[in-house]
């Protein structure tokens, strides 16, 4: 433990602490504060319960004096994964010390002080690859891109766009100088880049930030050229603006703006208003508050659920993504998606559209790659957005649950197409947890540039790589998965959307019966696989066809006889 950490720890160990967890009887044991964890061990000879809580996952902490003349204290810890724990600590001083340690250590500012930089499990080595793929690999694997699209290293020093990766995919016809000029016309330098290529018709989805047209309708030839080059002469494309038309107009006053029809002849702009930032964060807070209120009747619950507007946000996200996918698949046109900065709702929409369209992104690995490409590498500011979750009393700064909204919308897709996703709800829950506090470095920082500067990849382990290890993977797979190469169009009727109880009521209602039912489905599927597969055969790849022949052989034998 380095000096800085130990400074924060005045009382490292407290005995006779009572831990109250949701849906469990109270436990008595020892509480220990370390640099990155809160450790609670039940005082029992065997089979004792241990709790290891990452301090980073503490969202809010409340303390109060209890006992006669305040001789003891109670600490309530509200975690970013929405769990609520309570510790009853004998001794007021101990209680205050523990509380202040938790407060200090859960909100360390410096990224390199965070636990991922210290997490060194025996089975993992830092020399293993970090990340699943790069734009180079994506490009190399998509041969059909090569005609009209190229890899550009214009951003190799992060000088053109701070929040983009070093390499991006752009139209062949546009050289790096033009790109740099176009970038200067887009907020944060986020010029239009390719994020998805639709194999069946060669159409693409691109994303960017808003153009900086400003109040006097500035234009930028290079930006216009770039967009023109993305589509053929005769074709046209759609711009899905995730702001309302009014918001886009108003943005001009602040130097932003939108692509005017006069200068972007072949592009049609559609506005789809998605909430962002503070509004989303407040929506999450209201929803979590509603879910935590145990004493309510039906009407109050429904009105609170409505009032939180969370399901409306899920609805807008899915239907906008559906619209993008519809443009590409049914209408046969390329699409550019952006809002303001192009780092939140834009990514939400482009990644959901890919889930709808692209069977590859629905596999376990493919989904993680999608998240890596569209969120981690594309510069979603995880560090700011996921600094706090729904319980924090801290003044909101740039928190926004855009990523959580993506996971929720993905969950809705999984509900509507229970066979189409290779991963299960358990993976989504794991990602929801790790985005806010993690042992791994994947969701640290807000951009590739920051990750490079802090040497995140050299000094932390990669969550995605870890999840893909065979023994981990098993926990997160959907037993019912059957690959399909078709698009999955979600129903966006309000009646088809549901509250994600697995996340929001995870700790209030123990869904044991649900887990058991899930187990049962697993058993049925496994039985199925076993009956399907000749016993004693080492090859796991044997298909139906092979077992078919067995019976056929048997039939032949019968006929011969």
């Amino acid at each position, binding site marked *: 433990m380095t000096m800085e950490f130990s400074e924060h720890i005045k009382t490292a160990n407290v005995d006779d602490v009572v831990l109250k967890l949701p849906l469990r009887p109270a436990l008595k044991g020892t509480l220990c504060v370390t640099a990155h964890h809160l450790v609670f061990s039940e005082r029992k000879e065997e089979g004792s319960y241990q709790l290891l809580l990452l301090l980073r996952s503490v969202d809010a902490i409340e303390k109060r004096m209890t006992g006669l003349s305040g001789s003891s204290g109670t600490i309530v810890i509200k975690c970013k994964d929405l769990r609520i724990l309570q510790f009853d600590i004998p001794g007021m001083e101990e209680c205050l010390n523990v509380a202040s340690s938790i407060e200090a250590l859960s909100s360390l500012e410096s990224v390199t002080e965070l636990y991922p930089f210290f997490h060194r499990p025996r089975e993992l080595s830092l020399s293993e690859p970090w990340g699943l793929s790069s734009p180079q690999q994506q490009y190399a694997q998509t041969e059909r891109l090569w005609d009209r699209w190229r890899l550009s290293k214009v951003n190799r020093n992060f000088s053109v766009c701070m929040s983009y990766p070093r390499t991006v995919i752009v139209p062949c016809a546009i050289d790096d100088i033009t790109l740099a000029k176009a970038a200067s016309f887009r907020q944060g330098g986020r010029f239009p880049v390719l994020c998805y290529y639709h194999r069946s018709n060669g159409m693409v989805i691109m994303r960017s930030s808003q153009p900086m047209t400003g109040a006097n309708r500035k234009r930028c030839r290079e930006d216009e050229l770039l967009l023109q080059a993305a589509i053929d002469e005769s074709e046209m494309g759609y711009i899905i603006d995730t702001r309302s038309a009014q918001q886009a107009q108003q943005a001009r006053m602040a130097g932003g703006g939108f692509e005017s029809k006069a200068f972007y002849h072949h592009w049609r702009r559609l506005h789809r208003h998605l909430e962002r930032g503070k509004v989303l964060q407040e929506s999450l807070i209201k929803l979590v508050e509603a879910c935590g209120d145990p004493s309510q009747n039906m009407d109050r619950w429904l009105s609170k659920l409505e009032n939180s507007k969370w399901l409306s946000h899920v609805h807008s996200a899915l239907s906008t993504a559906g*619209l993008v*996918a*519809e443009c590409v698949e*049914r209408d046969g046109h390329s699409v550019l998606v952006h809002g303001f900065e192009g780092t939140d709702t834009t990514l939400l929409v482009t990644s959901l559209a890919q889930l709808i369209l692209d069977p590859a992104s629905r596999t376990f690995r493919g989904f993680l790659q999608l998240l890596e490409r569209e969120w981690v590498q594309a510069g979603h500011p995880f560090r700011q957005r996921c600094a706090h979750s729904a319980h924090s009393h801290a003044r909101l700064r740039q928190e926004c649950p855009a990523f959580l909204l993506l996971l929720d919308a993905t969950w809705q897709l999984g509900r509507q*197409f229970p066979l189409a996703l290779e991963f299960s709800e358990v993976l989504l829950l794991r990602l929801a947890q790790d985005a806010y506090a993690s042992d791994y470095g994947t969701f640290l920082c807000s951009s590739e540039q920051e990750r490079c500067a802090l040497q995140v990849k050299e000094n932390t382990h990669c969550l995605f790589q870890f999840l893909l290890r065979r023994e981990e993977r098993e926990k997160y797979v959907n037993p019912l998965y059957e690959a399909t190469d078709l698009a999955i169009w979600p129903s966006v009727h309000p009646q088809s959307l549901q509250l994600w109880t697995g996340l929001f009521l995870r700790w209030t209602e123990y869904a044991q019966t649900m887990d058991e039912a899930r187990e049962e*489905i697993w058993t049925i599927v496994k039985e199925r696989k076993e009956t399907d597969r000749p016993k004693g055969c080492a090859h796991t790849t044997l298909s139906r066809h092979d077992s078919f022949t067995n019976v056929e052989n048997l039939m032949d034998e019968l006929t011969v006889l």
Partner: protein
Amino acid sequence: MEHIRTPKVEQVKLLDRFNNKTTTGTLYLTATHLIFVESNVPGAHEIWILHHHIASVEKLSLTTSGCPLLIQCRNFRVVHFVVPRERDCHDVYSSLLRLLRPVSYDELYAFSYNPKQNEQQREVGWQLIDLTAEFERLGLPCDQWQLSDVNRDYKVCETYPRDLYVPITASKPIIVGSSKFRSKGRFPVLTYFYQEKKAAVCRCSQPLSGFSARCLEDEHMLQAISKANHNSRFVYVMDTRPKLNALANRAAGKGYENEDNYSNIRFQFVGIENIHVMRASLQKLLEVVGTRSLSVNDYLLGLESSGWLRHIKAIVDAAIFLTKAVTVEGASVLVHCSDGWDRTAQVCALGALLMDPYYRTLKGFMVLIEKEWISFGHKFADRCDQLDGDPREVSPVFTQFLDCVWQLMEQFPQAFEFSEWFLIQLHEHVHSCQFGNFLGNSQRQREELQLKDRTYSLWAHLLSEQHNYLNPVYSPSFAERHPVLEPSTQPWNFKFWRNMYHQFDRTMHPRQSILKHTLTLKESNSKLEDTAHTLQAKLQTLGVSTSPLELHSWSREHRLPPRPQSLILGAPLSRKEAQQEEEVLGEEALEDAPDGNGGERTVEGSSATENGYGELQSSFSSKNEPAMVSLEFGVARMTC
């Protein structure tokens, strides 16, 4: 047939109520069904609507394309036809008006329905559910409870069954006296017996107490019920009505038990609303969810203001109260409402379902419905509007019960042997009047109608295709671990039952069904084993030793009969299956065909246009977009 003026109308358009999809076809009117057959499509799509299912027919004002006819069904199907000629429309309309309001029981479908069974099969079908055996299963009669013959000839209470179980100390004069003090003569009788604690669930109607009347026999009767249970010194009396309603009833000479007059009772109101409130609530709910382009907020607000889930929760809460009193306190409970055939049936049936795992099996659930609903005289004919009657008597009381059961299924996925599909089938047939079981208002009436000789039993029909209704994750060991279910009553556990109220709205449904998938997997597992065994046995008889040969396989020939076409069971499972069905249905494949070759198609019939994500069509000039319009109507092939 004399009511049918125009048996066939061509070029009728069918409009989807949630999107702009239109289908053209021919409308046929038969003595029992209204049938719509899509035209010009191989393997055309057909809609069969039983007249009994039609709740209302409305002729809307004439439009340029024809005369619209809006039909709302009791199974929540809503169809919107546009008939080109006004006269045809009027003919269909007036024929339907007559056909959907049968004036006598003889006109009901059950009396003409013939499933190709012989007399013996019919008889066997009616014997499948035996209530005497059920009471035996409960350990009755016993030292405290006896079978009474007081109602053998329906003389004491004509809406009760003939066989009734009462405390041994309740003599005939007490019973008769009590029955005279109870609304419609429905005196307290046993309906469920919890053997472990010797506690009984009894049911009756409200006492005719008015403001001060009392009846010694009735007081004796309750005393007898209390004494029959040595575990508890008192008996709970659950009045399932809101207190205000019970108070109001006193003015009409009815009311509730005065605790001062009855020794050893604990009186409790539980506040379930009456049939009129429930009818209005469902109507409001259907109005809300039937709205086109409904926003999430309006949906949630509508759900709240309809009060439907509040009512569902009230019933479940009452059943939980009943269950706790019986299983935890070991007390007997007497349940009543006004007449004791609506709310009482709901609460007693749901309580029994919570207490006894047997009722959570397929057969047990049939027994439960036979007992609590059919035999004790829930007025199915009135509540489900089987004959042209008083609209104020119609109410979704049984639908609510099914809804409550579904809510429990959602909380306990492994507790029920049957799936929601079974509940939906039951709902279908309570209204279909295709089988005799639910006809009429009471057992007596059913006997008079000679239903067992003239109609078929639904139970036999359902059992014959029970493989369709099984819950693949049902676990008998779950029942052992949780003999009594303790559902959570947190409001978020009560959900809108989309698969019931939108069962015919294809765009609402998940495109893939876990239920169907696991069911098929499970069936194929056991099928494979069977095949293996048969083949092995065959070889053995032929004298071939087959020990190491592996026999597991998946054969397409060895399959159960196809499942009924249902949106709830989801669309085809695998792509292969999807293709097969598309070859038959044609329409789906065309609709989703891309305008290029070798492109991606859409999964399992889900389609972008139906979901209405955007305003694509309007935002483009038609010059640029010839493909869009034609795609929608499934003539993509012509434009490619």
